[in-house]
Structures are given as C-alpha cells and as structure tokens.
C-alpha cells in the first residue's frame, strides 16, 4: 500500500522536520515528496538540505522553491533588508554541494497521475500564490494530472474541480482521511512544515494514499521553542523566531 508523505516549506526548521519525519514514518510512509522552500527563515538550512538530498537519492521527489532559488542566486539590492540578510546568512551556511543540489532542483515533477510543484502549475517558476478558487482552477487547468500538490501558501487547503466545471474549496480538518476520487481534479496544499501560519504552531504535512484515493492532513507538534532559540542565537531577525510560537 503506497503512502506518500508530502512535505513542503520546511524552511530550515530542523525541529519541525524531525518531528514530521518521525510522524510520517510511524504512519507507514513508503514514499516522500518535497515541494520546495527547504531553506530560508530557519536556523538549520544545511541539515535540512542534507536530509532532503539523501531522501531524493533514495527516490523521493523534490522541487525547487523561491527561497531555494534565492539561496542559489544570492540576494539582490531590490530585496528588503531583512530578506537580504536572511538570504546572505543562509547562503553562508551552505557548502557548494548543498548549493548545487538546490540549483539542480526542477520546478515541477510528475509521477504517474501526480504533479508536484512549489507554487502553482500554470507558471511554476513565477511563484504566484494559489490563494483562492480562481487561482486553483487556473492551476488545475494547466495540468492533466488529477492530483496537484503545491506549497508556497503556508496554510493547509484543498481545492477540487468536478466534471460540471464547478470548483470548490475546503479547509481540511487535521487527522480526518478525505477521499479524493480520481474523477475530479484535486489541488492539495499540505501547509508549511517549518513555518505554519494558520494560528496553529504544529507542523503541517499530508499523507496521500493513491490506491485508496485518500488524503490525510496531519498536524505534528514539535519543539518550536528550541527552533526559535536557534534563530535568535544565529542573529536572525527576532520576528522569525517569535512567529513560530504562535503559528503566524
């Protein structure tokens, strides 16, 4: 029985990623898919990139996020001071091998009937957010896959498009398996593992079971106090540490 753990927006948060990996393994994950933004915001970019690289070598799917791209390219003068500072700091933490791994990440990966992409399917390298039904329909129309998984948006969400052309959206309840029958098209946003923003500090990920055509959104509590302490110790902006406690 294939069980795919879909993890996105890890954001260099080692504590969150460790908790999510442990939870997903306990749930019997057989495959992994990472939807990008491995770095940025958090204090452990190198560790997170190493973990993902190792899992990709083992067959996991991974795509590039805007923060990964920024780490590869480096900051530009147009960026806000804070963003520039985080990117420069992150870049300094990564060795050439890690940067090469990020640079080589594709913008989208298709496996069978599933499309993995960081922001959306209509312009994967442009980083436009899927913020509502209209965006979701635009993304769904851009693929023939019945299942699209994307991140970028940090709040968990589920969109669907039926044969009659009507789209719907749904705020998923954690831990409740949701059938995703294949005669509809679905767009799954698991929510951020490393920096949740829906008012709940627990890390997000989703487990997809292609055989049973079913998804379960999970919330995993983790030691966000340690993660925040490391951010402060690294001299990164305090705001990035404080928000982890509230999930905002």
């Amino acid at each position, binding site marked *: 029985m294939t069980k795919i753990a879909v993890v996105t927006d890890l954001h260099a948060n080692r504590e969150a990623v460790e908790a999510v990996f442990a939870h997903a393994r306990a749930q019997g994950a057989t495959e992994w898919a990472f939807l990008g933004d491995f770095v940025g915001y958090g204090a452990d970019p190198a560790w997170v990139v190493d973990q993902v690289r190792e899992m990709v070598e083992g067959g996991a799917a991974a795509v590039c996020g805007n923060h990964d791209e920024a780490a590869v390219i480096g900051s530009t003068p147009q960026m806000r001071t804070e963003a520039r500072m985080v990117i420069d700091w992150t870049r300094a933490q990564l060795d050439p091998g890690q940067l090469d791994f990020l640079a080589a990440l594709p913008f989208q990966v298709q496996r069978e009937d599933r499309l993995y992409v960081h922001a959306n399917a209509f312009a994967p390298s442009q980083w436009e957010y899927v913020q509502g039904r209209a965006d979701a329909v635009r993304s769904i129309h851009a693929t023939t896959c019945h299942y699209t998984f994307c991140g970028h948006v940090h709040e968990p969400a589920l969109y669907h*498009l039926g044969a009659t052309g009507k789209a719907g959206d749904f705020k998923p309840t954690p831990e409740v398996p949701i059938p995703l029958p294949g005669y509809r098209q679905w767009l799954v946003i698991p929510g951020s593992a490393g920096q949740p923003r829906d008012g709940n500090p627990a890390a997000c990920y989703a487990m997809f079971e292609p055989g049973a055509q079913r998804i379960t959104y999970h919330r995993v509590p983790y030691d966000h106090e340690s993660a925040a302490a490391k951010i402060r110790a690294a001299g990164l902006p305090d705001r990035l540490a404080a928000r982890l406690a509230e999930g905002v």
Partner: protein
Amino acid sequence: MAREQGKPASRSVKSGTVRSSGAFNSGGGGGSRRGADWYDVGGMAPPLEKGAIVDGFLLEKRLHQGGMAAMWRVSRVDAEGQPAPVAAEPPLIMKVPRIKGGEDPATIVGYEVEQMIMPALTGQHVPHYVARGDFTRQPFIVMEHIAGDTLRPRLAEAPLALDEVAEIGVRVATALHDLHRQHVVHLDVKPSNIMFRPDGAAVLVDYGLSRHEHLPDLLEEEFSLPMGTGPYMSPEQVQFIRNDPRSDLFALGVMLYHFTTGERPFGAPTSVRGLRKRLWIDPVPPRALRPDCPPWLQEVILKCLEVQPDKRYQTAAQLALDLQEPEQIVLTRRAERMVRSSQWTRLKRWFFALGAEPLEAAPTATEVLNRSTIVMAAVDVDHASPDLLEQLRETVRRIVLTEPGARLACVSVMRIARIGTDALTDHTGKSLHVKQLVGLKHWARPISKSLNLEDGRLTFHVLEAPDPADALVDFARRNQVDHIVMGARGNSLLRRYLGSVSSTVVAESLCTVTVVRASAPVEVDGDGKKSVAETSQYQ
C-alpha cells in the same frame, strides 16, 4: 481534445426540476462538461443485466429501478464466478446510479457525495458500507441490504395511531442523533429514506444530498436551486444552508405532521417561490385537523417546524427525550393554537423574509451537539446523606451553568424486587413513586431557581428497577445522555458488601460520568486507621 473547462457553466435553471417526489436537487440545464473522457461511462456502459458480474459481485435480481438509481441484490463471487461469501457478512445490495451520458449533474454529484460519505459512517442506523465502483468503469455502491419496506407506504395510511407516530419519532430521532454525532447532516429526511431493522432501530438511507462536516461539500457550489425534497425542506435549506443538523429535525417534524394529520404541512411545492412560503406561512395546527391529537404532540411537531432553527429542538436526542416522556413536555402557546397565525402576522413575516438570507453562519453539527447536551443527574433522594445531596446539586448547577443549551434530566431509581410484585403503595397509601418524584423535584428546586431554567430544560424521571446501576446505564443510553453526574457511596461497609453503583455506571456507560463525593473530614478510627466519613448512595 477540445477543452471547455475554463468557461464557467452558464445555467438556465428549470424551476422545479424534480427528483422523485419533488426534489430540488437538480440544477436543471447541463453544466459545461470537462474533457469528454471523464464522465461518459454512465451513458456508454452497457445496461447491467441479471447474471452479470461487476467487480466480484454477481447481480442476482433487480429489486428496484428508480429515476436516480437501480438497486440490485448481489452476492460475492470469485474470479471463476463461483460463490465466495464472506463470513458474517449481511445480504448485499448494489446501488447503480442512472447517469444519462453525463448530462445530469444532480445524479453525478449526488453519487459522488454518497460515495464519499458512506464509507465514513458506522453504526446500526446506517447501512453497512461494503464497496464502491470506479467511476471511470462502472459506478456503484455495494452496501448491506436492509430488508423490508421504507416508511413511504405508510404515508398512504396516515393518519396513524398516535402512539405509533410518537414511536416513529423516537426511532428516527435516535437514528438522526447518531448520524449528527458522526458529523453528518442528512438533508433529505423523508419516509422513503427511512427503513427499520428487525429490532426496530431506524436506518437512514440515501446520502446523496448529505453534508459531512469534515469532508469537502461537492454540492455546495454545484446548483443554483435549493437542494432537498420539496415538502420536507427546512427554511434554511431553501436559503442554501447545508450544514445545520436542525434542518433534519424540521424534516422529521414534517413527517410527524403528515403521519398525525394525513396532510402535508407545506403541501408539495414545485417552485422556489412555493418553497419560500414556509418562511412566513405557518402550517394549520395539527389539532385543527385531528381533534384527538394531544396538545403535547402538537407542541412537539410545531416546535420541530419553527422557521428559526434556534426555536426548534436543538438536538434529535432532546426531541427523542420529550417523545418518550410526553407528560413532562412543557406546553407553550404552540400546544393551544387552533388556527394559523393572522394575516397581519404573516404579512409581517413575509416582509422580513423578503430576500432574507440567514444572518449568521449556521452552526455545524459538532457545534450544535456540543452546546445542546443532555446532562443526567442521578440522585438517591431517599438514602444519600444531606452533604452528598448538597455537593451533587452544586456540581450539577455548575455544569448546567456553563452549558446554557444543556437539558437536565433528574433521575432517581426506585428499587423493586426482581421477581414478583412489590406493594407499590406505602402504608399511608401514597405512591412511593410519587414520593420519590416529589423528593427529586425538591432536590432540584434550588438549581432551577438559581439558573432560571426555562421551560422544557428540566425533566424528572423515577425509574422502577431491581438494579439501580442497570437502570441508570439503560436510561442514559436510551436517551443519549452526554454526561451523568452521580454521587458515590462513601467508604462504607455497605459499598464493600453491596458493590458500588457508581463504579458500575462508570464502567458500563457510553458517556462521560462524574462521580461526586461529599467533602468530609478525615476521621481517625479507634484502631488508628484513617477513614472518610460515610456517605451513602443507593443502598
């Protein structure tokens, strides 16, 4: 393949497109279809015939062919077509939706919804789900076959005997409460969707219009007409609200009205305009149509049919509780009404209903159930110590205080012998039963005074039974009590020899149980051991 998916459906609404007996669940004109490879199956697949094998199920007999679906009796077979029954599995039925070449969104989406919700349901009040078919090959749902007829033929026999009406009400309300607890609102409660198991338990069928609180609502955006069956649809359903469990109580009220009077309270409208009339025109009071309808039954039915969900029973369990204890129903002006409200009142309601949409988002099943619990206070008025009675009362008061929607059922058990008959009157000739009831009411008086428990929130029950624990557990189960509060026997010899009633109730109840002890000074025995002052309960 040409794609049309970018264009939103332009819909020409055929007012009153009906499903079976007047349902508004069809949106009329076809929506823009997605890639033709998706949904053609229904139209293209050869019609199923007796003897065919579908995904390991042998079609034995077509039991029913309706406008929306066919029902087949099926059995499991192996790859060679040989019978392969599964041990302890009930007889099976296959529901095959009738899909007219993808042009019928009501059937398609209704089937999708049912396929999504049914596997999530458990318990005796729903058909046990077995399997579903892949839409791209042959859509179907295999489920337990509930033998017998639906309630629908009984409509022709209405008006029914009054005790039978109440009995139907209790059973259906019990089933609905179980469904609401599973976060599902049925939204198409009507006699043809109600069946019964041999033990009398009601079974709710057809989840094609239902709404599961934790699953996406595929119907939400699908149609531009209210969804439901015309005669039974609640006012809020007419206004496109799809998550309020109290909508099902309105539909049950329509059924009870029909079974009581032989008439439909709101007729069988076939237009949205006709449907909206129920927002301001109240039905003819049942007693005007059936003189022997008791005031309490009219009270119950009209309470179910209130336009505002907040004025109805808040949960099906509370409705079932009333129907089982009619003498305790507090009669309001509803019970006395013999004519509809005046033209002037209707005019006012009509004015305010003009284009009215519900002001607030409807509460979900979980929210309604959480704020409308049934709390049961088990009180041993004859034997418990004054301290314990006081402590119990204070605990109950606090619980009811924090749950403004809760109902409080005060229960006392009168022990009777297992065999033979007891003298049910004491030496003064006064019924022991009445005496206990008086004691119970006296115990509860400070609570009802201080919390100003309005009509109908407080009931009293004296149970006659040989075993208090069994009686309490059984009462709680029958009435779907959410929380039992009871006293504990103290550290007494009696508990040692007779066992503890409260521990049995804690062990056997399905709900939360709070066991109250009187705070008592710790005393030192003659031999130096500490013991808590005795309190006793149910000796």
